[in-house]
């Protein structure tokens, strides 16, 4: 980083004044920020606050990797985006917001999914990577790519009320390389043990807290100010307000950079984790569209994948096929008509649709958004909610 050649305009000096006047930070750290190249992977829950703070702080070159589109359900926590961004690629929404926030920095966007095929190319020109993605295959991919390329990986992840932060593969002033993700978790959990945020939910403020800590560590890595969270692992529970910082070490049997490395290049991470990095989007229908089908006499079938006791509480005349038995009852699902699949809130029916599409190639299935509860709320409030 040639920070010594970095200069600032009058506007930039005014903007960064509160950094520059901190004795431990000063002009030199601000120059390092301006010279830095930081790649933020994932511009969602963690990426949103991280990008806002990195851009505001004056990180001179920020790359953003994301393939997703801004959705209404993102706005509860992805503070980078507003109503006007819904429907835009996330990287586009991010670019617009960050350009407006700080015109003195360069934003480069990659509207693509990071994969084993492009990861090394995407990462190689950056100094620091910040991983704000959302699934195990991509976590291992980014970790391995960073170790193979010798890049620092500022890591954070969240689930419901819980957040984790660490800095992986960081080389300290003595040339010692710190632990990486594989030292901490040699293998991923079996599929299904830890649901994704899309399935398990996440409290909106939590990514704000954890993504801001991630931005803090990026800034420390870049500037050399303070003690980087390398060899340590921070864990925060928003419900109990318990936070702990654990010591972590390198594992001699790490297959990437332990005593006998066996991984020399990127591998098939979906196979390694036994799960897909990205779940295919499924077709959706909302309660008012379904109501329109009902009143217009559209010929469709509706399947309820809840349990019989839930069906007894309230139902909207759908055929009951509980999720557990959907596969053996595939013959009951019409192949010609449109088929709406519903559950209580839309999660189980989404799973049912994915399973049916994957195993039987069905392409006429629509998930009732918000489930029966959404339908009752919007269309038939006289029915029982539970």
């Amino acid at each position: 980083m040639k920070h010594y050649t970095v200069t600032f305009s009058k506007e930039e000096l005014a903007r960064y004044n509160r950094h520059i006047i901190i004795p431990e930070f000063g002009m030199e750290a601000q120059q390092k920020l301006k010279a830095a190249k930081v790649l933020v992977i994932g511009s969602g829950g963690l990426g949103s606050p991280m990008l806002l703070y990195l851009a505001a702080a004056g990180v001179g070159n920020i790359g953003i990797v994301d393939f997703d589109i801004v959705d209404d359900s993102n706005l509860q926590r992805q503070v980078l985006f507003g109503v006007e961004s819904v429907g835009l690629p996330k990287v586009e929404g991010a670019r617009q917001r960050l350009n407006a926030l700080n015109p003195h920095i360069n934003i480069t966007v990659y509207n693509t999914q990071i994969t084993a095929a492009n990861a090394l190319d995407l990462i190689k020109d950056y100094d620091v990577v910040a991983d704000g993605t959302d699934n195990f295959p991509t976590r291992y991919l980014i970790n391995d790519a960073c170790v193979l390329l010798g890049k620092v990986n500022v890591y954070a992840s969240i689930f419901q009320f819980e957040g984790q932060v660490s800095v992986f593969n960081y080389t300290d002033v003595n040339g010692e390389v710190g632990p990486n993700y594989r030292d901490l978790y040699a293998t991923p959990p079996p599929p299904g043990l830890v649901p994704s945020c899309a399935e398990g939910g996440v409290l909106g403020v939590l990514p704000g807290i954890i993504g801001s800590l991630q931005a803090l560590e990026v800034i420390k890595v870049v500037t050399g100010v303070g003690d980087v969270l390398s060899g340590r692992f921070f864990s925060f529970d928003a419900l109990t307000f318990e936070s702990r910082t654990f010591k972590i070490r390198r594992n001699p049997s790490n297959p990437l950079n332990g005593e006998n490395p066996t991984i020399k290049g990127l591998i098939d991470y979906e196979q390694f984790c036994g799960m897909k990095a990205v779940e295919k989007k499924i077709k959706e229908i909302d309660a008012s569209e379904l109501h329109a089908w009902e009143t217009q006499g559209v010929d469709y079938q509706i399947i309820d994948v809840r349990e019989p006791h839930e069906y007894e509480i309230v139902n909207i005349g759908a055929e009951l096929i509980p999720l557990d038995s959907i596969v053996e009852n595939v013959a009951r699902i019409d192949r010609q008509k449109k088929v709406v699949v519903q559950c209580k809130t839309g999660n189980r029916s989404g799973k049912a649709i994915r399973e049916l599409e994957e195993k039987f190639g069905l392409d006429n299935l629509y998930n009732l958004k918000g489930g029966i509860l959404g339908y009752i709320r919007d269309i038939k409030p006289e029915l029982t909610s539970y």
Partner: protein
Amino acid sequence: MPTVFIPTPLRKFTNQASKVEIPGSTVQEVIQGLTSNYPQLQRHLVNADGKVPNFINIFVDDDDIRSLQQEQTAVNPNTIVSIVPAIAGGSR
């Protein structure tokens, strides 16, 4: 008694308890006590070889038991045993 911190993904197996006190003088005894109180935790905390699986870290106070005596690491009544599983959320 040692206190065990239960992480969010496993609280559905502990009636939502976030910390529980379990008697024992080693990590192994504490885990045995925990899984006998909450049998559904067994398959998440103990693998086929009777060890803690790779995707779970156990810390005794601030230290990873892998850098101590693994499951035989001693605990005392003031010890906090933290169970820290891999989680991956962040973007969507």
